[in-house]
């Protein structure tokens, strides 16, 4: 991730810089408004008043340039896969992906006879957290956010993230 790649063990400067930068990244995850299917409705319900993802600092942003989290909410079909790939590439670098729902995780209910369904979005883009459920409850999605935040907490600028 830069010139100081794997050159330092954990010393006080790197770790405190890590802690601060990771804290900033994880407390303001901006997802793109990008719902595909039924999970998008539960994603909207998470943004609505009862579960309110804004409490964790999550505001949906329309343009991929300003987003750093992509929630793949719904069934990924082959026609859509190239679009998702392009969207993912348009996002600026520290970007994360949550595969929301069984369809994005592994093709879900359509894995057997779905000739047009992509069996899991990780064939197209690297996924950080898989949130199971069909559709997952808003609480499960919030728990997915928290799991992602834990993962970001463990990142470090001095070592490349574990794949």
């Amino acid at each position, binding site marked *: 991730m830069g010139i100081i790649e794997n050159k330092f063990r954990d010393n006080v400067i790197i770790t405190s810089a890590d802690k601060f930068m990771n804290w900033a990244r994880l407390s303001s995850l901006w997802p793109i408004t990008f719902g595909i299917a039924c999970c998008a409705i539960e994603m909207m319900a998470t943004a609505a008043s009862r579960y309110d993802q804004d409490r964790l600092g999550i505001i949906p942003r329309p343009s991929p340039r300003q987003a750093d989290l992509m929630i793949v909410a719904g069934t990924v079909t*082959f026609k859509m896969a*190239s679009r998702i790939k392009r969207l993912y590439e348009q996002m600026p670098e520290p970007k994360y992906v949550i595969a929301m729902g069984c369809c994005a995780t592994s093709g879900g209910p359509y894995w*057997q006879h779905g*000739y047009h369904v992509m069996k899991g979005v990780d064939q197209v883009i690297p996924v950080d957290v898989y949130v199971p459920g069909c559709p997952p409850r808003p609480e499960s999605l919030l728990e997915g956010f928290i799991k992602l935040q834990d993962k970001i907490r463990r990142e470090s600028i001095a070592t490349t993230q574990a794949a």
Partner: protein
Amino acid sequence: MESSEVFKLIESKYPDALKSIDLEGIEQSVTIDVNSIADVCNYLKTESELQFTSLMCLSGVDYEDKMEVVYHLHSLLHDHRVTLKVELSRDNPKLPSVSGVWKAANWHEREAYDMYGIVFDDHPDLRRILLPDDWEGFPLRKDYVVAEKYRGWTIRKIKEGFE
């Protein structure tokens, strides 16, 4: 007015167009000859006391020996319904398009083409509506074999380690 009377009216107007009438069963339907379907539909729509102004549903069906297109028509004015069927050969199903009569048929016919390969002549723009344009094969046919890969992504999920 009952569909049997409608069939009699069609028979009187287009004697040679009527192939067979099936009155028992839940749904009475009449099979129309292939190349006169457009005129019969036009007649059904414009005839004053029939007024079948709304095409409810146009669906393709694939039997072992023949291909079939089923039209469900309904008249808002007189509130009666009728079912027309057209039989086509399996290897090169072609029939005149009715999108000139009802504009609703436009997308339904494109879907029938996409799923069954039924070609509707003089349809405004007959191309695939649901599947990507470079998809080979017509999925809903009974003898359709799912391709192995599509643009590098495996379609059929081989459940490794589960069987």
